[in-house]
């Protein structure tokens, strides 16, 4: 089966620096002026969009789920986020460290608290929950799609994990 060429355009963490399965994950992301959306956000004041800070937390939590459940599910999505607070701006040249703690990881749902810090300055904090499932749960003909997704994500995990 041919590998899908990954365009690598929607990954909001650069490296996972610490992981304790079932419990906690830490990851980092460096912000570069080359990131395309910064040209629009904002032209004279480039800062990482708030939703992409949240995406960094979501991705970190998703990897914690995938590693903890041994890649059992292809789809890991945000189900809800609450009290996501943006405390400061993250500009190019900075690196943010995300720390996500699991409150509970069950078979199809999980809940977390997460925070992002740069240079001892708090940037973002959130409470959120994910849902995880396979496409085959609703349509068994999609089992091969699940397998493909999981395969690609396992490869990505090798790149992300220290």
């Amino acid at each position: 089966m041919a590998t899908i060429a990954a365009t690598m355009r929607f990954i909001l963490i650069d490296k996972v620096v610490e992981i304790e399965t079932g419990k906690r994950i830490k990851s980092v992301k460096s912000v570069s002026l080359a990131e395309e959306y910064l040209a629009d956000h904002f032209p004279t004041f480039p800062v990482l969009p708030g939703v992409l800070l949240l995406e960094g937390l979501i991705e970190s939590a998703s990897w914690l789920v995938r590693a903890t459940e041994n890649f059992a599910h292809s789809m890991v999505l945000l189900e809800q986020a609450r009290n996501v607070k943006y405390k400061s701006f993250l500009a190019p040249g900075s690196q943010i460290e995300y720390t996500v703690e699991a409150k509970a990881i069950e078979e199809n749902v999980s809940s977390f608290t997460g925070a992002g810090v740069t240079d001892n300055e708090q940037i973002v904090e959130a409470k959120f929950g994910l849902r995880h499932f396979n496409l085959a749960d609703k349509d068994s003909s999609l089992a091969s799609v699940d397998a493909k997704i999981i395969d690609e994500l396992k490869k990505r995990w090798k790149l992300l994990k220290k």
Partner: protein
Amino acid sequence: MTMNREQVLGQVQGVLVDALGVDDDEVKPESTLMGDLGAESIDFLDIVFRLEKAFGIKIPREELFPAETLMNNPEFVNNGKLTEKGLAELQSKMPHTDTTEFAKNPDMSKLGDLFTVGMIVNFVQSKLKAA
């Protein structure tokens, strides 16, 4: 609208649980908004909006959380502490709060301790009476 203190406290607790994402049992009358419940600047605005909606009152932010104008005025703050003038200003802006303890050592870093759940209940009650 006539509500007794218990009812006001109940509604205020609901507002704080939603605005700050804390549990019901964490919101006690003596809990401080910043220290105990983790409230920050944006949360104060969120709380003001929610209180306005819940009680049908209008709350100019400066009335409930007057810290900002106090902090930036050199007549009111000297060396991180409130001056006599500053204390008087604080007390006139926050008649619903007991500032005697704070007045003994009016250190700005401790100003946050005045903002308790009970203080908000006092404030809401005074607004409801005036309405």
